[in-house]
Structures are given as structure tokens and as C-alpha cells.
């Protein structure tokens, strides 16, 4: 893996930044790679557009900004409208399928992977863990970071007392991601 550029987009309050931070932490601290994180959010904390740019590489990263992501992780329709066209041709779009409707405007060869992450989070007990379900989904679909590293990164990032639910959310997304990716390989 030379360098993979990832953008995570959604609304404030969905845990977009934390999702990016966990992916970066898993890659850099627990998988021994290099990673950078750039975060952007609107003036209001909740409900405004929000995104995180994560770069993961085997080498030192000289330029941390993501212009044309290899992987897009999207949790809102606005984020899709804004970032969908920037996906690299042949790149992968991972999206919350109950919040994002995918159209034909994606670059050529784009691979799309949907997950009902909000519903999964609610079934687990807290809508709040939507971002962790998405982080697990990212891991299962892309394999860019190891599941062990993600587990450690989640445990190290979430408040005490919430670890178990967050781990269940991670595994839910991870298993769903692996099954969706396996279906794609089988097609």
C-alpha cells in the first residue's frame, strides 16, 4: 500500500471526526503505519456539515490534504452531494444507506457499499454509536487497517463504561462489511 486517501463526511453530531480519528489512530499507533488527520466542521457543532480527511501510508506523509479520495465514507446526503464527485475513478464509496441515496454522478468504476448503520446502532441500544458501526464497516470492506488495531483504537478512544457497546458496534459494522465485500468478490 503506497498511500490511501480517505474522506469521511456527514453532519456534526454523527461522530464524523471521531470516526476519522479512530481510523488514523488504528493505522498509525496500532498497525505501525503513517497517518494524518485533517478535520473540518461548520460553525455549529451539531447538524452542520462536517468532514475528516485521513491519509494512511507506509511512508512518511508529506501532504495531508485529501483532494481525490480513494475511499469515501459518507453519512449524509449533503456530504454525498459535496464529496461524491471527488471520489477517485475506481474508488470505493461506503455510505449509510438510509441517509444517503446514491445516483449516477459518481466517477467511472466507483464501487459502492451501503450499510443501515443508524438502524444497527439503534438496535444495539444507542444511535450514538453510528460512527463506530461505520468505522467497523470501513475496516470490513477495505481491510486498510487490521480489525485488532481498530479494536484497540476504539477502546482507547471512547469513554469508560461505553467500551462494550462500542465494541459490539465495531464488530457489527465489521462483519457486515466483510459480508458485503465478499459478495462483491463473488459477483
Amino acid at each position, binding site marked *: 500500500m503506497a498511500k490511501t486517501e480517505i474522506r469521511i463526511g456527514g*453532519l456534526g453530531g454523527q461522530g464524523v*471526526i471521531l470516526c476519522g480519528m479512530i481510523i488514523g489512530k488504528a493505522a498509525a499507533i496500532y498497525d505501525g503505519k503513517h497517518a494524518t488527520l485533517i478535520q473540518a*466542521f461548520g460553525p455549529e*457543532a451539531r447538524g452542520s456539515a462536517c468532514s475528516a480527511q485521513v491519509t494512511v501510508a507506509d511512508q512518511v506523509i508529506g501532504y495531508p490534504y485529501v483532494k481525490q479520495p480513494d475511499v469515501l465514507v459518507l453519512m449524509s446526503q449533503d456530504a454525498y452531494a459535496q464529496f461524491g464527485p471527488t471520489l477517485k475513478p475506481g474508488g470505493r464509496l461506503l455510505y449509510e444507506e438510509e441517509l444517503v441515496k446514491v445516483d449516477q454522478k459518481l466517477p467511472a468504476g466507483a464501487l459502492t457499499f451501503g450499510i443501515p448503520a443508524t438502524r444497527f446502532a439503534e438496535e444495539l*441500544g*444507542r444511535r450514538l454509536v453510528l460512527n463506530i458501526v461505520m468505522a467497523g464497516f470501513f475496516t470490513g470492506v477495505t481491510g486498510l487497517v487490521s480489525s485488532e488495531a481498530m479494536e484497540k483504537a476504539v477502546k482507547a478512544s*471512547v469513554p469508560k463504561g461505553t467500551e*462494550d457497546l*462500542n465494541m459490539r458496534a465495531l464488530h457489527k459494522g465489521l462483519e457486515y462489511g466483510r459480508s458485503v465485500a465478499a459478495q462483491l468478490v463473488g459477483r
Partner: protein
Amino acid sequence: MRLEGFPSSVTLRDGTALTIRPVKRGDQPALLAFYREMPQEDRLFLKDDVTTESWADRFIRRIERNEALSLVAEKDGQIVAEATLYRPQHGWSAHVGELRVAVARSHRRKGLATALSGMLVKLATDQGADKIIVEVVENQVSALRTFAKLGFQQEAVLRGHVRDIRGARRDLLVLSNDVSHIWAAMEALVADSSQEVH
């Protein structure tokens, strides 16, 4: 709902080793045997008539509908304690769980109620409960001590709400453990504002 980490074991203060596991369909006879062994004086503090088969069937159905999460402690295959967290699935108190614990006299004052209650408080928090309540009669001193250790505080008193086996009326205390602060920390973390990210 499948609970992870069970069956587990617990060693009481006197060295007795017990198995802790979730209640499942087929446990009705063992549960009825446990409660029928319990002195009537103790059963008086329970909300239901736990000696009837209809209660046992209703109880199992509630567990299967995820309205209750119940653990039993077993010694040599015999139930010696049962602890349940009741969780309404809808309505204005769906965020509140109610804890009920019953321990056989032979296994009291050994830390078993504390162990079971602690497990259920953790499971409740883990499943997203904001608040857990428990009802204790004013003279159940060791129960009050147990729940205080687990972070419960007195929230309400229902005067003369309980009539004991001798006809004396006693106050019923409602204790609560507000665990929402744990989730408030998580909410702050996913707020996606600059000051929240570390």
C-alpha cells in the same frame, strides 16, 4: 438477546463458587423450586406471586421479548439467586431499567447480591440505559448498603407503601443510579466540534 461473557463464575466471601448464567426457556421448574423454597416472609417483598407456573411462563416470555434481562446463580445445578433487570421497550421510561434481586437465605451476606447487581448494572449501561432504579423496603439494611456501594442513591420515599407479614406498614424507598453521565461523555465526543477532539 445473547449475552456475552456467560456462563461466568463468582466466588463468594466464604469461598463458595457459583455459576452465573442468563435465564433461558426450560428454567421454569428450577425457578419455581427456588422461589417455593423461599420463606413466605421473604416472598412478600416481591411484586409477583413467583410460585405459580403462569408467572414462570410470563417471566420467560418477557425475557424472550427483551423486556427483561435475567441472571441466575447456581450451586450444583440448583438456583440460589435470581436477579433481573426489567427494560420497557417503549414509552416515556424506555431509558429506565428496574432491578430486582432475590437471594436464597443460605447464600445471603456473602456478596452474591452485590455481584449479580453489579453485573446487571454493567449490562444495563452497556445496552444504553440512562437510569436504573431499585425498590427497597426501609428495613432491608443490607440491601440498602449493597445498592449504595453500586452507586444508587435514594430518590423517593413511598410512605407506608409496604405491609409486612405482621401487618406493619413500612416505607418503600426508590433508589436510583443515573448512568447517563457515561453516555453524555460519549455524546460530547461525537459532537464534531474542535474542542471535543483530543
